[in-house]
């Protein structure tokens, strides 16, 4: 009998946090991309816990909990690109004190790169990629430079 099989595999719940931010209802599988977009955690800063493929009422989802940091709305809204159903919950003294759904801004820079190999934004010019949001719900975006719409947005995250 191997060691592995002796270990009892109990589902581990993320402990409640006292203060911080819970990003809930992230499209299943996209939690790590969300962290990459948010640029967290930075080295040796706050604690971040991730739960992936958690069974929720509306199917599987990912959850991210950031301790001791209240993420600002503008900061988080851009994750709507890959997690359009996500909610941001601000936790103070163990209680959810603020909650809002993410919403894409009208325009954003960086985050994703244009999928068009002959787009000027992919050729080492001193500019960041830049996208215009056409539809915040679906979501649909187009490259500010070449005007193309990427086929699969989550594939294009930098």
């Amino acid at each position, binding site marked *: 009998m191997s060691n592995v099989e002796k270990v009892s595999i109990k589902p581990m719940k993320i402990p409640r946090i006292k203060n911080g931010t819970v990003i809930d209802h992230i499209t299943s599988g996209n939690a790590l991309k969300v962290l990459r977009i948010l640029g967290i955690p930075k080295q040796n800063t706050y604690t971040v816990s991730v739960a992936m493929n958690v069974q929720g009422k509306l199917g599987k989802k990912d959850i991210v909990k950031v301790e001791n940091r209240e993420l600002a709305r503008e900061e988080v809204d851009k994750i709507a690109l890959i997690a359009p159903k996500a909610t941001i919950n601000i936790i103070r003294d163990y209680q959810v004190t603020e909650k809002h759904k993410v919403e894409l801004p009208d325009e954003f820079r960086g985050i994703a790169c244009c999928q*068009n190999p*002959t*787009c*000027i*934004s992919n*050729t*080492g*010019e*001193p*500019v960041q990629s830049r996208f215009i949001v056409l539809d915040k719900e679906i979501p649909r975006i*187009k*490259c*500010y*430079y*070449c*005007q*193309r*719409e990427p086929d699969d947005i989550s594939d294009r995250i930098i």
Partner: protein
Amino acid sequence: MDFKGKDIISITDFSKSDINVIIKYAQKMVPYAKGKEYTRILDGKVLSSLFFEPSTRTRLSFESAMNRLCGRVIGFADPTATSQKKGETLADTIRMADAYSDIIVLRHHLEGAARLAAEFAEAPVINAGDGTGRHPTQCLLDLFTIQTEKKHIEGQKVVLLGDLKYGRTVHSLAYALSLYGAELAFVSPKSLQMPKEVVNECKEQGVNPFSTSKLEKVIHDADVLYVTRIQRERFPDAEEYSRVVGSYQINKAMLSNVKEDLIIMHPLPRVTEISPEIDATPHALYFKQAFNGVPVRMALLSLVTGVML
């Protein structure tokens, strides 16, 4: 819209009334474009004509337009002679041109190049074609041509034929024609259909283009037939290419059943898409269309510098 200092990047940046202003003003430029009247309004102004990709018509007509207005032209027609070859960014080349001139005209092989140039230049940038992207001045001269010949664009049945996937002129044109409420038919081989972005743009304007691979389905009814070239390199094998291309070659026999006042347009250069026997028919409008590039570009140069006739 106040055109002074404005970049001309994509036709989608302009409203119908903006386009009408340009077309009207271009009509005023015609006698000057023909050399029948004379003006010095752009005396002392310098145009940078930056062609990173070869072009005859667009470049010459811009240069003619600037010269007809007594402005000066600097620039290049062949990028191999520039420091781009040495790895300079487009942004830096544009910064230089901006310092040396009052208007920048840019043709580039990459999509979005003009949009980028506009970010780095104080001077107005006019897009003379970027990759398979936009070519707004061609679009404006096409609209000018239809307006001048047909007196109105609304309700005209316009057939766009050929390489609708990579042909940049048809993308801008399809959008602009829908702005005017023209009826559109897209005729192309399956592999070279109009991109979905362009079809969506038309639909947003309330126009539902009819797409087919068979020209005979729509030609008898058309008011305008806009022909574009299908390039050999778009096809995996030569046989497929010659089969497809053959079915879209316009000759006299194909025109037996068309409207008397059908006009045939082509952004040129033409190779075999339109048989030379068409040239002498009243349908052939492509040479006049090419001339129209001059008054339209004169109008734009005058508008963006804010020095009016």
